């Protein structure tokens, strides 16, 4: 992994959603780390701070909001820029995500263009 490139992490159990992300980063100078498992992602994030984290809500092992709540307890991730991407697009989830300091809440599905724009916006200063 290049030390100079910002890292973007995606946690989503959908392989097709992850494929969207693979397409989106092609023109970008970023590293992409993808996790299908919330638990595997949490282990990785205990020692890594990405420039941007994309997080699904409904996952088999743990919901994304509880995941983020736990992540925020780690000093390393008090302020990690996080985008929630979810098919579960309810106002109450948006409020809960906002309280956890997410920078964006985006309803699935996301186009590659929309993903690319978000990555550029939030990794520009990395």
């Amino acid at each position: 992994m290049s030390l100079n490139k910002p890292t973007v992490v995606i946690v989503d159990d959908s392989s097709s959603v992850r494929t969207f992300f693979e397409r989106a980063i092609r023109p970008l100078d970023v590293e992409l780390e993808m996790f299908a498992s919330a638990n595997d992602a949490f282990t990785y994030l205990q020692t890594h701070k990405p420039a941007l984290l994309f997080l699904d809500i409904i996952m088999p092992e743990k919901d994304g909001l509880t995941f983020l709540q736990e992540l925020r307890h780690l000093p390393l991730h008090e302020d990690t820029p996080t985008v929630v991407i979810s098919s579960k697009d309810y106002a109450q989830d948006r409020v809960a995500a906002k309280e956890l300091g997410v920078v964006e809440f985006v309803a699935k599905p996301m186009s590659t263009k929309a993903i690319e724009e978000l990555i550029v916006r939030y990794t520009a200063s990395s």
Partner: protein
Amino acid sequence: MTNSYLRFWGVRGSYAAPQKTHLGVGGNTSCVEIRSGDHLLVCDGGTGIIPLGEELMANSDISEMLVVFTHYHWDHICGLPFFQPAFSPQWKIKFFGPGESAEDIESRLSNQMKAPYFPVETETWMADIEYISPSKTGITHGPMSLSFHNVHHPGVTYGYRIKVAGKNVIYVSDNEIDFLKSSIERRRDEFDDEEHELLEQIEIEERDAELDEIRGTDILIHDAQYTPHDYDKKRGWGHSCYVDAVNFAIDAEVKVLYLYHHDPTYDDEKINAIHHDCMQIVRERKSTMECHIAHEGLIVEL
């Protein structure tokens, strides 16, 4: 009655419906009792938990129970402040629901009993209360084992799979089926041709993941709150249309479906008509699935 059964104490969604035109189905909100021998599991604490508590205080020879919550919307917790066993030192009650920790679960349950919303706080509960920490391995309660999964409803909401008496019972009180499918249909124009193929895969993955959670289960208790007409006006409210619920259960090869979380504005006649429609769908699809209306007082032997 065998020593393993489930009983519906509250079957309404959203709010209680005590009108006499509704009482054939029942007016209390979500609460299901599951018994296996001396072990008692209660799913949700809507107003249905109030008569359950009265029954337990009057007739029960047990003194311990586990109460699990799908989520903390009022219709699922509002009976708890009136749940007599919680105020009795004879009882040991374990609580579980969505939350990061046992303290988190306690906070969510007890906040509804704080001033000015209720005259006494949970500190007045005299039962031996325990809040269970979330565990990756699920929960064991005597001969019953429980696991949970996330469902489509505002806020973190669980569905529960309960293994009891050699059977799988799945309790999904609140869930909007095919939410993503509707979202994709609405926004298809935003995507290019290559993305359209991926969208189809996403839709299939999401549907399969939802079906896998309930596939082949013996008994499914599922949200069927709306008619197609009402669902058109209430998409995104976190509840299912009964047509989707029946088709979903048939697709997952469920053996017995109980339509649950009935809309409080629907009277007995309307819910009977819903049942008639559901049976028609079952026949048209040549399914062997049993499909019933969950009604208050209904006991299902396990």
